[in-house]
């Protein structure tokens, strides 16, 4: 067994016992990267030199007996989290040369927990996309089928874990950008409750929806990562001062008597039959573990994509206004006056999807349209949140497919934004409601593409998600297949 293929908890043991050094582990991961990265393209930037230095320091600490939860563990960072002194592009030309003078809070926390950073992973430009095809730095490929997309926007972070180019990684999820690629790449991905993980240093797409979360190879690793990431941050006004439990203690606890909500709106026609049957099988497994299924309704589900595609672009149009060529990042070379500098910088610096969303968002906030679009969308958003509040009075957990289909082909949906937007149909409501969700592998299609099942819980109930996901993972015993690369 190669070191790069192990999980955090397996490696924690080996490091503690002195069987493996941080340096050996880092070298293993970088040799794997040398072998597969050219085909997968998980990374925008590798940090090999920094990683080897960090591994050497980790080994010093291990010798001293100073072992933190992630000491020596190679972790990849989506290129949307700011890293001090390391170029952070957000997948965009407009930030191609931006070097932050600060670390995101999650980067600080991971660093303090001993993590070794492998590199910055590829992503849809400004996290706007579901396939990692809108990146200025070219697409990432799904390790299970290199002709297919890995999902997005955190595609690079998902493939880096799936292709063993790191042990765990960080993504961000605004409408499904962690859970969807996790499902399509056959790994575990969690979007925590809005406010659970600090957004400080996360380059904003839609501030009221964005949330950072981990990609891992299994549920226990997810719990380990959440222990590091979660918590209040005085630098982030929307982060919440709620107690952070030890998430690892939920792993493996039984779920006997739990009510499992099956929302009828998520099991409708149009879902790929293989996905549908895999998720149904997952429900059976959960029942066998002691879960009791109840039919529930989330009546405003049908509006979630529409609401999302007003609120997210509206916030984005404002969040992305700062990229004007005045202070940092790309500036057009040929402008005669201020207005032209703005226009050309933004025209040349942003990709098509980003510009589309800026225009939609600007329109939705314009005088005379605000009430009909942003105002109305905010009202419906409240109803969607209320749907979940009501539902969680009847059940502990909601179970749904993570995506309507397995990974699609590169280029298949790039000309049809609406089809692309619909690939997030099962994940978007979660962000609108601010609740946590996790995607766990639940099987493969006949063609060998991974399928994911999604568990949802009430605000700050990440523990419950880890509990059911770990129990399901163990009982389902999904074949431990690895992509052949």
């Amino acid at each position, binding site marked *: 067994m190669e070191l790069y293929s192990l999980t955090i908890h397996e490696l924690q043991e080996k490091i503690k016992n002195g069987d493996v050094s941080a340096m050996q582990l880092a070298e293993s991961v970088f040799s794997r990267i040398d072998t597969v990265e050219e085909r997968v393209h998980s990374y925008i930037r590798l940090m090999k030199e920094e990683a080897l230095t960090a591994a050497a320091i980790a080994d010093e600490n291990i010798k001293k007996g100073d072992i933190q939860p992630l000491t020596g563990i190679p972790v990849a960072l989506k290129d949307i989290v700011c890293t001090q002194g390391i170029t952070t592009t957000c997948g965009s030309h407009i930030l191609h040369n931006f070097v*932050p003078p600060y670390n995101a809070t999650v980067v600080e926390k991971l660093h303090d927990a001993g993590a070794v950073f492998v590199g910055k992973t590829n992503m849809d430009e400004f996290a706007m996309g579901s396939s990692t095809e809108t990146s200025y730095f070219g697409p990432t490929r799904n390790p299970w089928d290199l002709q297919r997309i890995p999902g997005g926007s955190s595609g690079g972070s998902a493939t880096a874990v799936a292709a063993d180019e790191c042990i765990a990684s960080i993504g961000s999820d605004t409408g499904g950008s962690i859970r969807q690629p996790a499902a399509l790449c056959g790994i575990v991905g969690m979007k925590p409750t809005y406010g659970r993980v600090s957004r*400080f240093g996360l380059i904003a797409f839609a501030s009221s929806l964005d949330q950072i979360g981990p990609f891992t190879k299994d549920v226990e690793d997810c719990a380990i990562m959440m222990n590091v990431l979660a918590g209040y941050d005085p630098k982030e*006004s929307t982060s919440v001062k709620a107690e952070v439990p030890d998430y690892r203690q939920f792993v493996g606890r039984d779920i006997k008597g739990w009510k499992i909500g099956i929302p009828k709106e998520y099991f409708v026609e149009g879902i790929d039959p293989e996905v549908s049957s895999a998720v149904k099988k997952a429900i059976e497994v959960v029942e066998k573990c002691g879960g009791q299924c109840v039919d529930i309704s989330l009546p405003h589900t049908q509006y979630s994509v529409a609401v999302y595609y007003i609120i997210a672009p509206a*916030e984005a149009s404002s969040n992305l206004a*700062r990229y*004007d060529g005045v*202070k940092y990042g790309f500036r057009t070379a040929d402008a005669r006056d201020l207005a032209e500098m703005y226009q050309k910088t933004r025209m040349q610096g942003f990709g098509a999807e980003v510009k589309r969303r800026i225009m939609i968002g600007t329109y939705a906030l314009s005088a005379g349209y605000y009430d009909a679009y942003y105002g109305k969308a905010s009202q419906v958003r409240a109803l969607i949140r209320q749907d979940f509040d009501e539902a969680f009075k009847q059940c502990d957990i909601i179970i749904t497919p993570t995506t309507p289909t397995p990974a699609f082909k590169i280029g298949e949906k790039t000309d049809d934004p609406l089809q692309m937007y619909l690939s997030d149909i099962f994940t978007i409501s979660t962000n609108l409601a601010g609740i946590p969700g996790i995607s766990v592998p639940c099987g493969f299609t006949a063609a060998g593409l991974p399928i994911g099942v999604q568990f949802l819980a009430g605000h700050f109930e990440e523990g419950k998600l880890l509990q059911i996901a770990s129990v399901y993972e163990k009982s389902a015993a999904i074949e431990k297949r690895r992509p052949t690369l």
Partner: protein
Amino acid sequence: MEFETVIGLEVHAQMLTDTKIFCNCSTKFGSAPNSHACPVCLGLPGVLPVLNKKVVEFGMKMALATNCTINPSNSFARKNYFYPDLPKGYQISQFAHPLAEHGYISLEINGEQKKIGITRIHMEEDAGKLMHDENNPSSYVDLNRTGVPLIEIVGEPDIRSPEEAAEYLKRLHEILVYLEICDGNMEEGSFRCDANVSIRPMGQKEFGTRTELKNMNSFRNVQRALEYEVKRQQYLVENGQKIVQETRLWDDAQGVTNSMRSKEEAHDYRYFPDPDLVPVMVDEAWIVKIRKELPELPLVKRERFVKEYQIPVYDAGVLTAERALAEYYEEVVRLCGKPKQASNWVMGDVLRFLNEEKRNIRQCPITAKALADMIKLIEEGAISGKMAKDVIEEMYKSGKPPQDIIKEKGLVQITDEGELIKTITAIIETNPNQFKDFRGGKEKLFGFFVGQVMKATQGKANPQLVNDLLKKMLA
């Protein structure tokens, strides 16, 4: 046709907090460009605002001092527009849910009380500053001012003349400075005013088309700009032309207003709730705490001075114009127990000295105790009022207490009757003609004798005593 003028003012006041509204940078004015500019000020990607609670408290003070209702839940919104001095491409302000609403302040217009409504008070961040290179076609951005806290005080269109507007501004300014939440410096831009003005035929209820005036950096300029604009609007109407809704800039040098942008060119700011900040919750306990911290406000203090110290309304107005001055005066009164005399000395000599050197009362070398002592010395007859004039000047120059100065200069008043009788006797003897004339009915010569006594005593004789003795001895 008779017209009525309708004016509403919007005031931006910089808050005197040590740090900015959404980060820990200093708010100090006049530092090297961009020396108080952190990643939050610069609008770097991923950084987030954290509200400075002091700004809320300062805003609450102004809200309570202007009789506003504080919104128990108020929140921030983004005002979106592109400009190089606005690093994020939006200004964090308050829109749908401001800090406070529905207040008023009282003015005295021609001896009558008038209330001017306050529509709302909200918090926001200031923008940076652009500096244009005169030799090169380039501009520089200084972000030191970015994020300096402001409150905007939006007034109701209750003002009916440019003079009223100036009076309203002065009162508002006075309250802000009294509360010690704004330094009120108009030249440095800590206190800025925009004016909305329209005219309508006398008796008409509907408002006329208004113009917005900007770029007036003194009370006088606000009044001048409004006077000009009212005349301009009247001229247009009287000549059958239409007033265009627009923003106009006051040109101080030319004394005119010029069109800056029309309504059609106005920005669409696309306000929406700022998702990076949570609503500000203000409970009753917080309001009570802030209310307790409020100082006595100028208007109340003025009325109290008139009543308590029996001084004229005008004097009370001068003495309460500044909080520190009022405190100084009250300390003098407390120590000497002579409100009227204290008022005369403070308003007369002390303020004159300070004004001559453009100093404020905090920089005054004469302590309240020293002035009180001097007043007491006059009352006790130790020095005359005339002598005190010299003493106080010396006190201002040297900062010494009056007793020391009197001693050093030998300025002790002669109150010894025997000594004065001797002096007067000698004067009568050396001026027999005048004495004869006086007794013959030339009463004007009384002054001559007083003068002679003062001359002989080098002004040290107690004037009252000299008077009394002369009356007896000349008779």
